């Protein structure tokens, strides 16, 4: 019973292909660094990756590395190293894990993908649509590698994304082009950009479709599976490989739904996860929810890589719209409407808010949203205190007791 047991999660046959896509992504980057071509751009996870790909860059995502460090629990070795350098334990623990790993010259990527290390950047491109931390994070590397750091400052906390917001962001994106042309040595080819945006749109539509299979009762997969299978949507959107991958995964999920295969045996409760994953505890939490016959069927986090605004016929404007229309950029009212839609669509019985100590941006419990939603939707909400990567901020005992009590409440009421 309880924690520490091996995961009983049902594996997907698509996982083999997933590993190939991820390995290819890192190995191509590694080779590019060794050859000096193509150039490598580092990009924020919800940043203008399409523009970078279209201009011939291979794209590396430090946030993905942050998640890898969290999931492997290596983060706990590295965060203190960055803390000692003056990067506070209160700021993004992706940043502190990643910077700490860099200072130690270590990365699990070496072992996992057989590459020589984190691929060195030729340029760093951020978007502050998620937070300011990414900007400071990228500037650290800009100073280290002495390469240009360019970016977009996005509107935050908006009730509605207006045409004025979109035009501003689109203009900023266009403004990146001269520097990118200089670094890559290639002119922007609009047809190529349209093609890449088209591929990203396809990937995003498929990602949406695979996530929506969890609206089936019982659900064929859980949030914990989503966090694994979202890899290509993050690091390889804009490529054919990502599209191919989700087509395979979609088939497998549809097959599970058709056969009534449940990710959680005797699924009794359907939950929503609001906030960042607790990367170092995914397995333990997956097992806990399995034991409690509760399936986390949807999350804000995994939905964040659905960009339905991409339009190959209008690449800059639609990229600007897609990257500004994300959940995190909106005000509370919009976020509540969004969660309500998902709760209805996925027949959700309760909402878990993860208040991640070092990511206020993805912690939506801090302005009384759980209390408002509980009243509005008539379903219980629970706040769990933890963090994405910094396990010093997480009390397993408290979290487990809270989650078990939450499920007891669902059962009794």
């Amino acid at each position, binding site marked *: 019973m*309880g924690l520490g047991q091996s995961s009983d999660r049902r594996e997907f046959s698509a996982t083999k292909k997933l590993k190939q896509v991820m390995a290819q992504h890192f190995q191509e980057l590694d080779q590019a660094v060794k050859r000096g071509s193509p150039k490598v751009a580092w990009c924020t996870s919800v940043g203008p990756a399409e523009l970078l790909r279209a201009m011939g860059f291979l794209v590396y995502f430090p946030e993905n590395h942050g998640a890898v460090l969290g999931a492997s629990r290596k983060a706990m070795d590295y965060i203190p190293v960055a803390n000692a350098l003056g990067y506070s334990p209160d700021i993004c623990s992706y940043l502190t894990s990643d910077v700490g790993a860099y200072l130690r010259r270590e990365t699990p990527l070496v072992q996992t993908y057989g590459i020589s290390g984190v691929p060195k950047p030729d340029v760093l491109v951020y978007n502050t649509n998620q937070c300011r931390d990414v900007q400071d994070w990228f500037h650290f590397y800009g100073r280290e590698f002495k390469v240009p750091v360019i970016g977009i400052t996005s509107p935050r906390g908006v009730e509605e994304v207006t045409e004025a917001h979109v035009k501003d962001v689109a203009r900023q994106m266009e403004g990146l082009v001269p520097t990118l042309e200089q670094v890559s040595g290639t002119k922007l080819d609009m047809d190529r950009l349209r093609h890449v945006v088209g591929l990203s749109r396809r990937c995003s539509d498929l990602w949406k479709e695979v996530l929506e299979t969890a609206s089936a009762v019982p659900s064929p997969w859980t949030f914990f599976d989503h966090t694994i299978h979202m890899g290509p949507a993050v690091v390889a959107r804009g490529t054919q490989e990502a599209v191919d991958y989700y087509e395979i995964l979609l088939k497998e999920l549809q097959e599970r739904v058709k056969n009534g295969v449940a990710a959680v045996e005797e699924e009794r409760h359907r939950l929503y996860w609001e906030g960042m994953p607790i990367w170092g505890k995914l397995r333990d939490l997956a097992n806990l929810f399995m034991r409690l016959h509760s399936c986390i069927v949807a999350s804000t986090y995994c939905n964040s890589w659905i960009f339905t605004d991409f339009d190959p016929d209008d690449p800059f404007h639609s990229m600007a719209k897609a990257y500004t229309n994300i959940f995190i950029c909106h005000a509370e009212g919009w976020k509540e409407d969004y969660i309500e839609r998902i709760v209805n669509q996925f027949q959700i019985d309760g909402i878990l808010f993860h208040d991640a100590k070092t990511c206020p941006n993805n912690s939506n419990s801090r302005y009384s949203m759980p209390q408002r939603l509980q009243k509005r939707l008539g379903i219980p909400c629970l706040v769990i205190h933890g963090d994405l990567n910094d396990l010093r901020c997480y009390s397993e005992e408290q979290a487990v007791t*809270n989650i078990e009590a939450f499920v*007891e409440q669902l059962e009794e009421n």
Partner: protein
Amino acid sequence: MNTKGEGRIHGSGLEKFFWAGVDVGASTTKAVVIDLEATMRGFHVQRSGVDYAGGSAACLEKALEKAGVSLESLSCVVSTGYGRYNVPMAKRIKTEISCHMKGCYHYFPHAATIVDIGGQDCKVIRVDEKGRRVAFRMNRKCAAGTGAFLEEVALRLGLDISQLDSLARRSTRKVQIGSYCTVFTSTEILTLIRKGEKVEDIVRGLFDSVVQRILEMDPLDGTIVLTGGVVEHNPVLAEALGERLKTNVFIPPHPQLTGAFGAALYGLEEDRAG
């Protein structure tokens, strides 16, 4: 004791008609034995120590002894608390959040806001008039506002934890202690000592700060019920909370045992439900 015979007298149809709850908390383990009428027949409290399995068995044995009930006449043992998975005799496991709610509702069967202050954490549980949980919350990671906090500060003041209640009652002057964090609080106390504040006023300030921490978790309205070991030994806390909220604060009998009692009630209810 002829348990079967007594069972027939009660006409319950149940062969075994005693139920036990074992609450393995961060500081103390509590065992409670109840009968068919949910009357507490015996209980025992001891330090949790490091051997939860052995400790909980010994604690239950003592409670049974006091109740004059044999282990065989127990229909069901329900465990709760931090060590709930380490109670070998437990047939069922429930979180302390549910058990405190169940135990309180037994004595106060109406809508209420329950505040449980334990050794390591503090919980606020809202119950509706039917005894259904509406919402609950646990304190954040810091120990401020818990028994551990009081213990730590008592140690700093060179006091025994058992002196706190009577000292606080002698207070004549309000002093404010504002920090979230136990370490910061200790520093604040040093400042107060330096300023010449009296120890009884500081201790009363400590209880007021525990109240403040609780009010930061929940606005606390309606009927307030206070449970847990801290209030059992420091009833002044209920007075401090009542003063602050300008309302009566209710305490069930043996508030330290509420979790274990609630656990036993779960067992009884389940058997009654068949």
